[in-house]
């Protein structure tokens, strides 16, 4: 148990956290502005990963793949918003859950139909492969470090977009009072499509980026979607800042718990049993974290006080 291992695991946790943030930011934005719970967000992540893998496979360029991931997810997002989601804004949560559940079925089986059941693989570009030496002599994969940087850059960009631009003003106004901003001459349905496409593009970007360190397969979106739900429940629904803090908390808890809980249990249990119960508890760690946050604050860390 050396410091190097600890720092490595913290970096892994951060990397996982910022990728979760890309998913959670879109979800929380869509919920905050449109009041919509979108289960199909994981499908957009999958669309991003598949587009990246397919285009990178055809052209040999990872960056073209990433652009394809962004474009395909944004396009798919805008399309489902205009065809289906638009009819659901006034509907009950139950209807939203079901309609977006139906979209998951359509997306997953559609993808399986086009690409087959076997996973695709997306290679890390040569420029970003291999380890990099950090101060203190720690070797860490350059690609994962890049993911952390991209995640932080997107977080800052999103903050600037929402706090500093005209579109951001409209989004914030839309969260507060949609009738009023419609009365002020903002085309609310166009705004909704843009917000949805923006959220979708973030999910697609996450899918494309993570696709290079995981296999790209049908059903990859749902586990991430559920983690993103945990993130926004912890952070408070509708709050981008909450999503950021929540994502880092979840990423770190999950990664560090998986590594250190079995070690911790070894202090007072025999090795085999410690390994088993440690990893069992660790797999539940983020849900326990969520439970604690909810008992303390039922609307999340940064949610609106009821």
């Amino acid at each position, binding site marked *: 148990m050396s410091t190097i291992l600890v720092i490595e695991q913290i970096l892994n946790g951060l990397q996982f956290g910022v990728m979760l943030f890309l998913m959670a930011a879109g979800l929380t934005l869509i919920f905050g502005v449109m009041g919509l719970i979108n289960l199909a967000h994981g499908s957009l992540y999958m669309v991003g990963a598949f587009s990246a893998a397919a285009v990178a496979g055809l052209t040999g360029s990872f960056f073209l793949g990433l652009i394809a991931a962004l474009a395909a997810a944004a396009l798919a997002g805008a399309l489902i918003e205009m065809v289906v989601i638009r009819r659901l804004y006034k509907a009950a949560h139950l209807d939203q859950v079901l*309609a977006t559940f*139906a979209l998951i079925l359509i997306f997953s*089986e559609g993808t399986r139909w086009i690409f087959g059941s076997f996973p695709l693989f997306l290679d890390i570009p040569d420029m970003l492969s291999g380890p990099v030496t950090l101060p203190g002599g720690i070797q860490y994969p350059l690609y994962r470090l890049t993911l952390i940087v991209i995640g932080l850059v997107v977080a800052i960009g999103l903050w600037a977009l929402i706090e500093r631009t005209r579109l951001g003003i409209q989004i914030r106004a839309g969260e507060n009072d949609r009738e009023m901003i419609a009365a002020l001459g903002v085309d609310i349905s166009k705004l909704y499509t843009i917000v949805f496409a923006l959220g979708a593009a973030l999910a697609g970007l996450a899918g494309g980026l993570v696709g290079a360190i995981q296999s790209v397969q049908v059903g990859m979106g749902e586990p991430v979607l*559920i983690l993103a739900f945990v993130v926004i429940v912890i952070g408070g629904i509708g709050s981008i800042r909450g999503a950021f803090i929540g994502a880092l908390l979840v990423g770190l808890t999950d990664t560090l718990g998986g590594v250190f809980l079995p070690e911790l249990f070894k202090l007072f249990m025999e090795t085999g049993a410690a390994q088993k119960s440690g990893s069992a508890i660790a797999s539940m760690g983020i849900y326990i974290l969520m439970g604690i946050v909810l008992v303390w604050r039922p609307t999340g860390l940064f949610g609106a006080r009821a």
Partner: protein
Amino acid sequence: MRVNEHAITAAVILGLIALPVWALIMDEPFTITLVTRAVILALAAVGLNIVLGIGGLVSFGHAVFFGIGGYAMGILAYHAQTYTTLELGMLSTGGTKFMPVIWLVAMVVSAFVAGCIGLLSLRTSGVYFIMITLAFGQMFYYFAISWAQYGGEDGLSIYIRNDFPGLNTLVPIQFFAICLALLCLVLFLMARLQSSVFGLALNATRQSAIRAETVGLNPMRLRLLAFVLSGAVTGLAGALFADLNRFVSPTMFSWQLSGELIVLIIIGGVGRLMGPVIGACVFVTLEHVLGGLTEFWHIYLGVILLCIVLFARGGIVGLLTGKEGAHV
């Protein structure tokens, strides 16, 4: 066309008796197994309908109780079939293959877990509630996967179906009879519950929690009790489902299953007595017919579901009776 809801109830139950009897005469045991599957899924959805239909709480984690019922059966029968003892702190038992005991254990454990999950998740409402129940479902799913003692990801196989006094449960029609009898019993209790003081009060909390509270009801307590009852019924269904397949695995905890249980209710009609039963029959039929036509039958299920949500609020019972169901 307006149809009386009682007529629908009678027709469905008659149909559920007639179809397997016909299959028995025609010697088609697979049809009996399919109907049994529909009956068990219906039972699970009837449980969910207590919180979803009457209480208006969208629980997206009811697979938890289904899975607990399944594992209660799996663990007890596993110890009985391997002649090992199950140590539970002070208590130790050799497991059992006796169905009523398994059902009781499944229901008690499910009810207890429902109480714990309810205490935490009912502090929230709306979207938070949906997401939290979903997250608890995943928590149990991952726990089951990492629980190596009982098969982990591979699940547990039980070689011989459990016993019920006086019946040979391995004969499909006899096992079906047990499941149908339990479903009818639960439906009868559900009908009583809907018109009981508790059912009416719970209904009131769905329509307006604030008004219910103003007239002296305690919404939290009503909802918690509903959640516990609901969990117990779905747990019972889980035990039967595991017995039907003679197999339990973590997929019984999967979030897709929670989603499908909601789908069954929506197809049939939210808050309707027979809604889940009709929904389960339609679902199993679709699964069988479309699944035989194409490997990608979930696409069609998705499209049908979208159409129901967008155009046919109230489900099949709503269409038949000409009334929309409960608004959730």
